[in-house]
């Protein structure tokens, strides 16, 4: 098993499954890696505060890759090409400190993942045409998508959370998906994620952070655990969203139409009583729902082929 077992290039860096499959069937969907380098919290519960720390988590998780620092250390020391690549990247041969090698490997994995930037979309062409005042170019963006954008930014208020160029504010919300993963067992989401974050030796407050200024740890230093974190999950970005279903943190909705229907008909009783009233049944008409889906689809395109990776060492 490798990272690419679940994060497959040909499946938009996910796996096309409703729920991930590691050493066992998992309770959450495999998130796409598009634009992951721009995030500030990682994983559905934000238990990682850096891309490299997040890259360590599945390696160690007995339910996912069920590996360990010793395994990574052996691999880096024993594989000729990896050992050579390590020396090129870090300026020394792989040593005997397996935990340090695990961190270094994760930082290299993070450097690769940060290159996974989603391509331009029809929506970007439309936005740029508006900014340039090019009405001809803007008119190429279909009317259904334009109406869907109005619903997204207007009455549906999607952009309170799906904000900015990646269509996410990078934070967390409870959007009315059931907490129970099986009878008697819940996924606490951000609540448990914060516990794991602050307990991790790999968080940005720890000794493995290369940033001596402490600036990169600002969010971790100030994050505020709250009761309302229970059942909150990270707001996913929407770029390439039409290509990476199923949807929601638990893969419980199979299509974008089902997602829009969920927000149109969400049961307020499923939301935190002390939570944000942002999520409410939108009561969209069939036309509005179809337009919103058309807009969401316009955030996705076939990605250009990637150049083959060069060998680490020749």
């Amino acid at each position: 098993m490798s990272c690419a077992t679940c994060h497959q290039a040909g499946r938009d860096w996910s796996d096309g499954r409703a729920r991930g499959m590691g050493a066992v069937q998992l309770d959450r969907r495999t998130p796409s890696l598009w634009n992951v380098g721009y995030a500030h919290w990682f994983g559905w519960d934000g238990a990682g505060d850096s891309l490299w720390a997040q890259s360590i988590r599945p390696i160690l998780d007995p339910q996912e890759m069920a590996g360990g620092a010793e395994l990574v250390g052996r691999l880096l020391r024993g594989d000729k090409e990896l050992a050579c690549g390590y020396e090129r990247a870090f300026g020394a041969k792989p040593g005997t400190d397996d935990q340090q090698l695990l961190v270094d490997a994760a930082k290299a994995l993070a450097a690769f993942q940060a290159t996974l930037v989603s391509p331009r979309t029809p929506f970007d062409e439309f936005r740029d045409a508006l900014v340039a005042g090019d009405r001809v170019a803007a008119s190429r963006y279909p009317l259904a998508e334009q109406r869907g954008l109005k619903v997204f930014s207007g009455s549906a208020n999607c952009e309170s959370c799906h904000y900015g160029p990646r269509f996410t504010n990078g934070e967390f919300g409870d959007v009315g998906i059931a907490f129970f993963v099986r009878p008697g067992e819940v996924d606490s989401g951000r609540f448990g994620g914060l516990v794991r974050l602050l307990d991790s030796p790999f968080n940005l407050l720890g000794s493995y952070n290369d940033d001596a200024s402490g600036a990169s740890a600002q969010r971790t230093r100030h994050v505020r655990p709250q009761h309302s974190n229970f059942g909150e999950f990270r707001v996913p970005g929407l770029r390439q969203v039409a290509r990476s279903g199923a949807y929601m943190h638990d893969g419980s909705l199979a299509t974008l139409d089902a997602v829009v229907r969920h927000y149109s008909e969400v049961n307020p009783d499923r939301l935190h009583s002390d939570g944000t009233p942002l999520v409410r049944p939108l009561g969209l008409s069939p036309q509005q729902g179809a337009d919103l889906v058309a807009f969401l689809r316009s955030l996705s395109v076939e990605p250009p082929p990637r150049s083959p990776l060069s060998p680490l060492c020749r």
Partner: protein
Amino acid sequence: MKILAALFPILLATTARANCPLDLGHGTGWVIYSSHYLVAFRPEPMRIEVGQPFSLLLNVCTKSNSPAELVAVDAQMPDHRHGMNYRPSIVAGTDGRYRAEGLVFHMPGRWELSIDVRAGEETERLSHDIILK
């Protein structure tokens, strides 16, 4: 993103005491006041962006010129009934100013900034609305 209103020019500079200047530099910022307090503050960086950490540089003054201190800074979105996901920390500078670090406004809309100040036994909360688009 842009703050809806440009940072206001300091309105009450004429009331500032010499040992409690309300001008925090750069010629911009906000001054809010009650019957007892004057609080001058400005963000760093100057432009608050949705989802991006920022700090506030503050000076807390009393109209009677008695010593005053900053107790806490927080913010809420009253329309959404939630606060920030982060708890700011306060650092007192050697120049009498304060720095509140670690604020993040994670959504566009109206944020109500609350600033708790104290002089002696008396604590008071001053508030100010900031609208992010």
